[in-house]
């Protein structure tokens, strides 16, 4: 069976996409229907079960939707508390994703989320911000899994205080471009009113940039699922001013990710009924959708699933390997003479994790990486001048 064969998607996924298509833009008079356990299982795996409530009132969906609403409000007011606390100390933050995207959903409370993401506009004040939040009752988590944000918890829920939008990519020029663009967020920030509070958020173009980077980060690591596509559809379908669209495209062009953005949009047009033009061919949209369906919400579909490289050549593998070394050893990797030892250590870690943690083989990992990378190679990631 060809990789682009719709039958490879599975009937449950085809029905799930159709259901999501309806639920993201419910027509008046829409009657709930039965979707079957297989579809609901897939929806649960992609963490979009609550989103199906407009089209399905099965007990599982009802329970998931109600739980999501409870969690939505807990996170909403957690965010309110964090923002007010930091604002009270003279620090500006803005909401990344979360309520700034949820507000555009037909029912914002059904948008799945598990934490609060805030961008600290002045990253040089991070230590101060953490002290202020700790004084207010937040606890900085002992184990931090990323370098671009600090995770704190309060009442069992997590706030991620970002100093940058995403983890560094394997291209210093792109990372510099992202930093430069992000440094302008504060000057362009806006606010919106929701449930009695004014929420600080990025401009439409900057929000779109956040969304595409978030998707790209997950795509390159181990993939992303339908939850991210749902946000994409909702965000773009509401319509943003043409000047914001132009600004967004310019940011993407600067970072060499305009093709990736087009792939996302075209795939959403083809499969989720998003308004707009499908500029990427059916075959490539099918390949990307296949990758997304296999990923699930956190790219954990298979133990062999790993990164997508920017290409399938030896240089691409070497680039990614070096990048993984820098992620594993952010401080030590600044000392160039240590690189050979750090590469060796990264290699051992890679083999160890394959065997003991992921319970897979090098062959499986490389095969899956190659398959994923064939799709990403077409996106000409981080290449300037490759846009349409």
């Amino acid at each position, binding site marked *: 069976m060809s990789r682009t064969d719709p039958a490879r998607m599975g009937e449950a996924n085809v029905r799930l996409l159709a259901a999501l298509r309806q639920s993201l833009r419910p027509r008046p008079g829409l009657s709930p229907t039965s979707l079957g356990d297989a579809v609901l299982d897939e929806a649960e795996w992609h963490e979009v079960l*609550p989103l199906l*409530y407009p089209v399905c*009132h099965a007990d599982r969906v*009802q329970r998931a*939707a*109600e739980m*999501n*609403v*409870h969690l939505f*409000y*807990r996170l909403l*007011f*957690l*965010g*309110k*508390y*964090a923002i*007010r606390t930091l604002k009270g100390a003279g620090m500006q933050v803005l909401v990344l994703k979360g309520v700034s995207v949820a507000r555009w959903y037909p*029912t*914002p*409370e*059904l948008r799945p989320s598990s934490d609060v993401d805030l961008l600290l506009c002045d990253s040089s004040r991070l230590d101060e911000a953490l002290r202020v939040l700790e004084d*207010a*009752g937040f606890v900085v988590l002992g184990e931090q899994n990323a370098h671009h944000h600090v995770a704190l918890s*309060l*009442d069992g829920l997590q706030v991620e205080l970002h100093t940058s939008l995403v983890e560094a990519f394997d291209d210093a020029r792109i990372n510099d471009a992202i930093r430069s663009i992000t440094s302008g967020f504060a000057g362009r920030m806006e606010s919106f009113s929701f*449930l*009695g*509070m004014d929420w600080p958020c990025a401009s439409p173009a900057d929000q779109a940039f956040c969304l595409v980077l978030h998707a790209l980060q997950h795509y390159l690591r181990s993939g992303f699922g339908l939850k991210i596509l749902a946000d994409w559809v909702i965000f773009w379908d509401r319509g943003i001013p043409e000047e914001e669209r132009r600004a967004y495209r310019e940011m993407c062009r600067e970072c060499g990710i305009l093709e990736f953005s087009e792939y996302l949009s075209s795939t959403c047009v083809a499969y989720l009924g998003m308004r707009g033009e499908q500029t990427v061919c059916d075959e490539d949209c099918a390949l990307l959708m296949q990758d997304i369906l296999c990923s699930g919400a956190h790219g954990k579909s298979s133990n062999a699933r790993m990164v997508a490289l920017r290409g399938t050549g030896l240089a691409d593998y070497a680039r990614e390997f070096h990048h993984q070394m820098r992620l594993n050893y952010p401080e030590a990797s600044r000392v160039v003479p240590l690189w050979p030892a750090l590469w060796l250590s990264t290699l051992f870690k890679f083999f160890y994790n394959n065997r003991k943690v992921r319970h897979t083989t090098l062959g499986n990992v490389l095969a899956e990486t190659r398959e994923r990378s064939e799709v990403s190679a077409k996106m000409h990631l981080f290449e300037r001048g490759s846009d349409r």
Partner: protein
Amino acid sequence: MRKAAGRYWLIDVAQNGHPYHAPLVLNESGAKMADLFLKGMDEGEMTARLSEDGGVDQTVVRGDVRDFVHSLGEYMNSGVK
């Protein structure tokens, strides 16, 4: 008051967020009573309106309204710092 997942959610929007004051989850009839209460009606007015709208005797409705207002009062007081 908001509607989501087939339920009505009465939210304390004035809260600071910590400690968290969870929403009061209401069904259809509870939501109707909450709506009238939030419009400033007292128990008697609420009873009369619900009785008229539902086509039922006020004696049937009065007890429900009293219980609801009591529960609502408890909910609102639980959010007072």
